[in-house]
């Protein structure tokens, strides 16, 4: 987030020039870390376990409503305890049904569950029918399963951020396991599912071409592969194809796989958890067969998730992965803030239309205009960095509890 010094400078810069138009939420929000009383109460009741407060916080996140950043930031302190699992796959692969059964299995072992299901929105009207909830039938009336449908709302790049923030809210609320469900098509969906620690990619049998398309993009992100509808024809073959692909992906696949595992749930979990001597993981994504409709193989899938979580921790990859994610989040936020500043500056320079018209009339060129617009921002940054260069703050080395052993 933007530091206080920068804020002060920004305000000074603003005062010397024309008053800015309406401030954008992003930058305005960065000006203070204090919650309003109402938002503080909202955070308080979320932490107290109010489902309604949780639901409202997620709405605020989705809407990017004023103050939502401070809410997420206040919740951040209470996170880090949930296992986050992403589930993706082509339409009709059975994601929603599987999520339903996973939620049931997790509840059976005493875990509380959060689900974020992301569906696409119409690019024309912005409207959406969010149907993932239809399959949630196994955990009826159980408020310890918190299911939330989210629409993509055409937010470029912002969707993964909103999902991550919703996960933060669920984590802070105290959910043990959080499932993120989304259709596995397109970059934004991949970004969404990558906000999870463990990613499961769902395939249905006989999807020969499907498996081919998996090569592009999705194969790389799968930590666990699931052949759902395993009772259908061609299931074994699909699993074999996936197995082969996974092993081609893992060039260092020295592990041998015992033959003879057949039927749902026959996952190669045990040998997949090897950790080599140098501490780096040699995780080989297991391929698990499930029949989501009946719940067959779901326990084995949960075991595979657990095994992956353990492997991530043991190898130290979890820390690295989370660092990556936080870096991406910081970048996204800063880009939004700086973008808002730039918009202000454009307005101060007469608005984009006027600037474009000046270029059209040959009075100036786009490069000069861009330089002029960015100049006030640049000067602020320079002033701020000169002032604070002596007291550069180093990120403290305090480690965060990524792994269960460090949690408490």
């Amino acid at each position: 987030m933007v530091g206080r010094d920068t804020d002060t400078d920004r305000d000074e810069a603003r005062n010397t020039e024309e008053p800015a138009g309406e401030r954008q939420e992003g930058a305005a929000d960065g000006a203070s870390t204090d919650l309003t009383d109402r938002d503080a109460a909202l955070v308080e009741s979320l932490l107290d376990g109010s489902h309604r407060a949780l639901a409202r916080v997620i709405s605020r996140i989705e809407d990017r409503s004023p103050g939502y950043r401070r809410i997420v930031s206040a919740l951040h302190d209470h996170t880090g305890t949930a296992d986050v699992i992403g589930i993706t796959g082509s339409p009709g692969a059975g994601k929603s049904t599987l999520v339903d059964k996973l939620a049931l299995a997790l509840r059976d072992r005493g875990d509380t569950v959060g689900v974020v299901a992301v569906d696409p929105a119409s690019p024309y009207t912005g409207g959406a029918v969010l149907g993932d909830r239809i399959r949630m039938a196994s955990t009826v009336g159980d408020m310890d399963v918190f299911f939330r449908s989210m629409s993509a709302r055409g937010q470029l790049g912002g969707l993964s951020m909103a999902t991550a923030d919703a996960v933060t809210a669920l984590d802070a609320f105290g959910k043990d396991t959080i499932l993120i469900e989304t259709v596995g098509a397109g970059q934004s969906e991949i970004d969404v599912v990558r906000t999870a620690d463990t990613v499961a990619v769902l395939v249905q049998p006989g999807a020969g071409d499907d498996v081919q398309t998996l090569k592009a993009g999705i194969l790389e992100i799968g930590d666990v592969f699931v052949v759902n509808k395993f009772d259908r024809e061609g299931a074994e073959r699909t699993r074999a194809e996936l197995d082969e692909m996974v092993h081609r992906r893992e060039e260092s696949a020295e592990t041998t796989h015992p033959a003879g595992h057949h039927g749902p749930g026959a996952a190669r979990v045990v040998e997949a958890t090897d950790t080599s001597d140098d501490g780096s993981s040699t995780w080989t994504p297991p391929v698990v067969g499930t029949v989501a409709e009946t719940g067959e193989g779901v326990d084995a899938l949960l075991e595979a998730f657990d095994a992956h979580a353990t492997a991530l921790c043991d190898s130290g990859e979890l820390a690295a992965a989370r660092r990556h994610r936080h870096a991406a989040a910081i970048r996204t936020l800063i880009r939004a803030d700086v973008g808002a500043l730039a918009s202000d500056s454009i307005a101060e320079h007469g608005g984009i239309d006027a600037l474009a018209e000046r270029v059209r009339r040959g009075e100036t060129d786009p490069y000069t205009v861009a330089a002029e617009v960015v100049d006030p921002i640049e000067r602020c940054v320079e002033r701020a960095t000169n002032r604070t260069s002596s007291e550069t703050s180093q990120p403290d080395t305090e480690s965060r509890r990524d792994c269960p052993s460090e949690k408490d």
Partner: protein
Amino acid sequence: MSVDTDERPVRCLVAKVGLDGHDRGAHVIARAFRDAGFEVVYSGLHRAPEEIVQAAVQEDVDVLGISILSGAHNTLVPKVIDGLEAYSALDDTLVIVGGIVPDDDEDALKAAGVAEVFGPGTPMSETVDFVRANLPERA
């Protein structure tokens, strides 16, 4: 629709409650809402009142549209309303009912907290306009 609008979309839950299996009306209204730019969560068939309440609370919807054609509205709808009340969610949820409801029952439902009842043949635009005009103010 531009990428970043400040206006938040209307969120609504279209719910089928009880034993009636006729969901054509629910589908049609769900599509109409979607085309109006709303985000529509569809519950699926045969939901119990508690499920509807759970969904409405978790999804934090502005509008709850209950489609009911079985004639059991007098028992089921008040249960949903009581449930919303229990989560103090009734105040900022617009509850509407679609289906075949006799006039006397309609008055009773309205007294219980239903904002409007839409009978068969109501033009979709009428329902959409009603929702837009009566959206609960969010604190």
